[in-house]
């Protein structure tokens, strides 16, 4: 799958007129800070208090400005267009819309899947809560989840668009399970729904899907369940569709090299946050997939310089050759101030272009030899 000749290789995303011979594709993980006016629009639409569901605010609804479903939809469209363009302005090769339409990575999907119900917020830490849903019956596919989001973003974007989807293992693990015998059977059923959604996204033109599985970091012993889910996810998905897996904030030695067996083209890994202390984990055995390396920290508001990011990119070249390297932030950028998020992306792109030029000029020697799963 990492063979350059394979149709899902990253070269299909190389922009026309790319300035360098080498191509270190630049992209992001997905989420991005929401414009303040979008939060305000959500408040108006929901009727004041965003911590309370809409239906619990009826008594005050009359006092609020008229901000109906259409106005809210338009606000989300505006935010999606704005952030997609912001990604392009930063120079990214593959863009997303910053997940402007999504409130939370599990809730958003659970609202669209039959079999889930909501019973109220639960604590994550301090006064940070989420509406952890309960699976109360067999999960079933209902309306599409992301086709509208993709079509809108692809329409306003000049560059290729990536679609991040919360993975079935995380959807299962971060829900209450009232209906299934065990986590695995729930996760596998959800994987079939993800597969159905990807089929619709591919029909709509999507060529780059990223499965987000942050829950794997908390329970690394379940890596076989994630692998089984991925087999279901990619079933009958055309080969030229690039499928990545994003994992973050965990002990990678507990899932590597087992994850190399997963049927994905790319692993998107957070490594910058602890200063590449875990980099060596991926050197032996050789990394056979593409590596989307986190080169800026998503949880530090200080913007890394171009020189710092170039040094981080070169860490990636210790693991894979340039042909297998993709450059990305560690994780979603949504917790950063928006101007910081933008500067990080812009510097990331500049650094990638400069490393490409250095590679073209032979000023960087690459240690890592190309490796293939077929070897």
């Amino acid at each position, binding site marked *: 799958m990492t063979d350059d000749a394979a149709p899902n290789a990253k070269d299909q995303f190389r922009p026309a007129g790319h300035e360098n011979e080498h191509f270190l594709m630049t992209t992001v993980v997905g989420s991005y800070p929401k414009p303040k006016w979008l939060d305000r629009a959500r408040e108006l639409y929901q009727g004041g208090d965003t911590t309370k569901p809409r239906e619990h605010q009826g008594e005050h609804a009359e006092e609020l400005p008229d901000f109906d479903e259409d106005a809210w939809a338009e606000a989300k469209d505006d935010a999606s267009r704005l952030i997609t363009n912001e990604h392009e302005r930063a120079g990214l090769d593959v863009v997303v819309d910053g997940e402007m339409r999504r409130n939370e990575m599990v809730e958003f999907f659970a609202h669209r899947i039959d079999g889930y119900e909501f019973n109220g917020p639960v604590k994550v830490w301090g006064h940070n809560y989420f509406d952890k849903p309960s699976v109360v019956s067999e999960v079933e596919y209902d309306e599409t989840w992301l086709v509208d989001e993709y079509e809108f973003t692809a329409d306003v974007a000049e560059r290729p668009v990536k679609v991040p989807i919360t993975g079935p293992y995380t959807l299962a693990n971060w829900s209450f399970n009232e209906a299934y015998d065990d986590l695995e059977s729930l996760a596998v059923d959800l994987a079939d729904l993800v597969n159905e959604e990807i089929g619709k996204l591919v029909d709509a033109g999507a060529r780059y899907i990223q499965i987000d599985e942050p829950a794997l970091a*908390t329970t690394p012993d379940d890596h076989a369940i994630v692998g089984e889910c991925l087999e279901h996810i990619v079933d009958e998905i055309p080969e030229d569709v690039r499928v990545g897996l994003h994992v973050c904030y965990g002990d990678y030695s507990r899932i590597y090299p087992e994850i190399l067996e997963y049927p994905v083209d790319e692993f998107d890994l957070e490594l910058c946050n602890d200063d590449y202390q875990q980099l060596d984990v991926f050197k032996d055995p050789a990394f056979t997939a593409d590596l989307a390396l986190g080169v800026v920290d998503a949880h530090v508001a200080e913007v890394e310089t171009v020189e710092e990011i170039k040094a981080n990119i070169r860490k990636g070249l210790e693991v894979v050759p340039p042909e297998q390297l993709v450059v990305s932030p560690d994780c979603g950028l949504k917790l950063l101030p928006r101007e910081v998020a933008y500067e990080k992306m812009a510097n990331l792109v500049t650094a990638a272009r400069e490393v490409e030029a250095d590679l073209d000029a032979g000023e960087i020697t690459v240690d890592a030899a190309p490796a293939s799963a077929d070897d």
Partner: protein
Amino acid sequence: MTELVATTPGLFPLPDWAKSDLSDLKGHQKEDLVDGDEADAVRDAYATARGEVVDAQTAAGLDRVVEGQLRWDDMLAHPLTVHDSVETRGIVRYYDNNNFYREPVVQDDLDFSGDVAGELDALADLTDDPTQAVLPGPYSLADLATNEHYEGSREFLHAIAEFLAGEADAFPAVETLYLLEPSLVENPPADDVADDLADAVTTVADAVDAEVVVQPYWGALDEKTHAHLLDADVDAIGYDFVANHEENLYNINEYGTTSDVSLGLVDGQNTLVEDPEVVRERVDWVHEQAVSADFDTTYVTTNTELFYLPYRKYEAKLTALADAVARPEVEA
């Protein structure tokens, strides 16, 4: 005949209005969490919420009423994170859950705080029913913390035990004290501290004139840890029959247990609410299967704290527990 007592390990979810009001009053960042010196408006909100969870327990018909530990932003690490000798650092994962607490780093002598006693004084003003105090067990509290002051891990464990004993000594009269010890399952004591476990637990237990229950959870104790814990001078050991009934039953039958026992039979981490009749059958099942045991008192409880649940599911769990115990005994 065994007396059945319906109770909980505490650490309840905040009512939804309090989640919203307190996030507005306190904020969302780690420096906004409870530090033992809250503003009046924050104290008032917690006092109102405390009244609600006391009423919820009374309405459900539980045999012990807890304070609810609603202020414990850092869950079981709370008694340290509000202590003056402790610095709180980054947000760290709370066991294998999608929950986080501030890492408490002990930097000076752990002298008397009185924070938990203050909460129990407030509880005493709210109810005439039998009350129950809740503390982290000394091993779990030491495990959740970082020690930068005491000489080694044994000294740290004993210092934590002495600190908890000092806190417990200041409690108003309570009927029962639960010491929550999930770390005994999740990260069992290494050889260098295993011999000190029973002493540390006994130090805390001896500080109160109440029935003392030690409740490990998220599985079964390994045999050695179970044997060490049996040496502690406590009235009851708890067993998490939700997470692992086979090994817990094995421990009880192979090594014996205390004269009273606490059975975690209702899932504190799932919204599926158990049928009281099924819970009662599980109580009877343990009594039948525990061949050598003839318990004086059996505490019937959730296996874990309850803050993982949405508020209305938490209320439903209280009712399930109380109703299971209130059912007339089924004649075999």
